[in-house]
C-alpha cells in the first residue's frame, strides 16, 4: 500500500516559529532543526466529533445568557475547504473572542474594560455537508497587550478547526476588514506572504439579503488541509 500523504504548504504561507517582533516567540521557538516526519497512521487519523456535544446555543454567542449580549451583532459564516476547494463536512469549528469592549472572560485578562454579564465569548459548531459553518456573535473589541509600548491587538476571533486527520489541525485568527491596527500587529504580520496574510481578513461587510436586524459578514476562512 502506498502511504497517503499531504502536500506541504507553499513557502511563506505559514508563519515561522520565531518572529522577534512578537516577543513571546523568542523564548518559545525551537532552535534545533525540526525532524521531517513521514505520515503514519498516527498522523493521518484524528478525532471525529459528533453532534451530541454541541449545545443548542453554541453557535449563537449572543444568546447564551438570560439577557442579550451588548455590542454590534454580526454573523460570521463561511466554509471549510481543502486546497482543491472541496468541502470538509463534519469539521469541528471552535471560536473564542473578547466582548464588545475588548475584554475576555478569562482569569488572566488584566484589561480594565468591563465584562458583559450576558456574553461569554466562546462557541462551537460542526460544518454541514457543504462544509458551511455559521455563528451569530458580537463584533469583538481591540485590547492592549504587553508586547511593545502602546501595543493593541486588532479585533479578532480565534478559530480552532479539526479536519479529516491530525495533519489538518488548524488554529488561526479571523480579522476584520479595514482595521487600522492590522499594519502594526506582529501576530498578523508574522505571516510572510501578503496574500496568505490577507486571507485571514474576513470579506467586507455587506447587508444581509434577508431582513435580519444584524449586519451580515460573509467569511472565507476555510482551506483546512485534507488527504490527497
Amino acid at each position, binding site marked *: 500500500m502506498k502511504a497517503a500523504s499531504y502536500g506541504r504548504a507553499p513557502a511563506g*504561507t505559514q508563519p515561522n516559529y520565531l518572529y522577534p517582533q512578537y516577543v513571546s516567540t523568542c523564548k518559545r521557538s525551537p532552535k534545533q532543526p525540526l525532524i521531517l516526519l513521514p505520515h503514519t497512521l*498516527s498522523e493521518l487519523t484524528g478525532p471525529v466529533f459528533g453532534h*451530541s456535544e454541541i449545545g443548542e446555543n453554541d453557535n449563537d454567542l449572543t444568546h447564551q445568557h438570560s439577557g442579550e449580549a451588548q455590542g454590534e451583532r454580526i454573523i460570521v459564516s463561511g466554509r471549510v475547504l481543502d486546497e482543491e476547494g472541496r468541502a470538509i463536512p463534519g469539521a469541528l469549528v471552535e471560536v473564542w473572542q473578547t466582548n464588545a469592549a475588548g475584554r475576555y472572560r478569562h482569569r488572566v485578562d488584566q484589561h480594565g474594560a468591563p465584562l458583559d454579564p450576558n456574553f461569554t465569548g466562546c462557541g462551537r459548531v460542526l460544518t454541514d455537508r457543504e462544509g458551511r459553518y455559521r455563528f451569530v456573535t458580537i463584533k469583538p473589541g481591540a485590547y492592549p497587550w504587553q508586547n511593545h509600548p502602546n501595543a493593541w491587538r486588532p479585533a479578532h476571533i480565534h478559530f480552532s478547526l479539526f479536519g479529516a486527520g491530525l495533519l489538518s489541525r488548524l488554529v488561526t485568527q479571523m480579522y476584520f476588514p479595514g482595521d487600522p491596527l492590522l499594519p502594526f500587529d506582529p501576530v498578523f504580520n508574522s505571516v510572510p506572504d501578503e496574500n496568505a496574510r490577507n486571507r485571514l481578513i474576513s470579506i467586507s461587510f455587506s447587508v444581509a439579503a434577508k431582513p435580519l436586524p444584524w449586519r451580515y459578514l460573509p467569511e472565507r476562512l476555510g482551506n483546512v488541509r485534507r488527504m490527497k
Partner: protein
Amino acid sequence: MTTPPTASQTVGPFFHLGMAHLERGNFVAQGIAGERVTIRGQVLDADGNAVPDAMLEIWQADSSGRYGGEIFPQNSATPRFLGFGRIETDDKGEFSFTTIKPGRVASPDGSLQAPHIVVTLFSRGLLKPLRTRLYFPDEPGNADDPILKLVPQERRSTLMARCSGQRGAKNVPENAPPKIFDWKIVMQGDGETVFFDY
C-alpha cells in the same frame, strides 16, 4: 486551482475560553483494556521558566494499536477508549493525565511502531503548534521504531518518558493504581525536545 491552507496564528493566552470543553485528565473508563499509566510533566521555555499557558492535545491508539473513530457520544453501550483530549498546564507549567499505554501501530513500510502518544503543543508565543511524540522506556520496539531512527541518538531521550517508580493514587477504575511516568517538554535551549515537521 489550489489555495494554500489558511495561515496558523497563536492560540494566545486565553484559549481556555474556547477549548476547555475537551479538557480531560483521565482517558480511561471502566471496562477499557490496557495498562493504566499516568504521565506527569512540565513545559519549560528557553530560560527554564515554567510555561503556565500551554495546552497539550493528545492523540493515541488503544491498547491493541487501533485509533478510535468518533469521540462522541460517550454514552454508547460498549466502553470505548477516547484517544483524544486536551490537558492544560497549571501555574507551575505542570500537567498530568492518566491513560492506557497504547499498542503498536503500523508504519508505512508495514513494520510496527513502538508504543507512542502524539502530542501537539499550543501556547502563547507559538505561532503554530509544536508537534512531538512521547515514547515509553524499556519497550522492545523502541530500537526498531522507524520514527525514533530518524532522530539523532543523542536527542532521542527527549522523547522518552521516565519511569518514576511510583504509582498514582488516582481514582482510576479497575486494576492497580497507574504507573507514573515523568516527561519534560523543553521548548528551546538545553535539552530541547525533539519537534517534528510534516
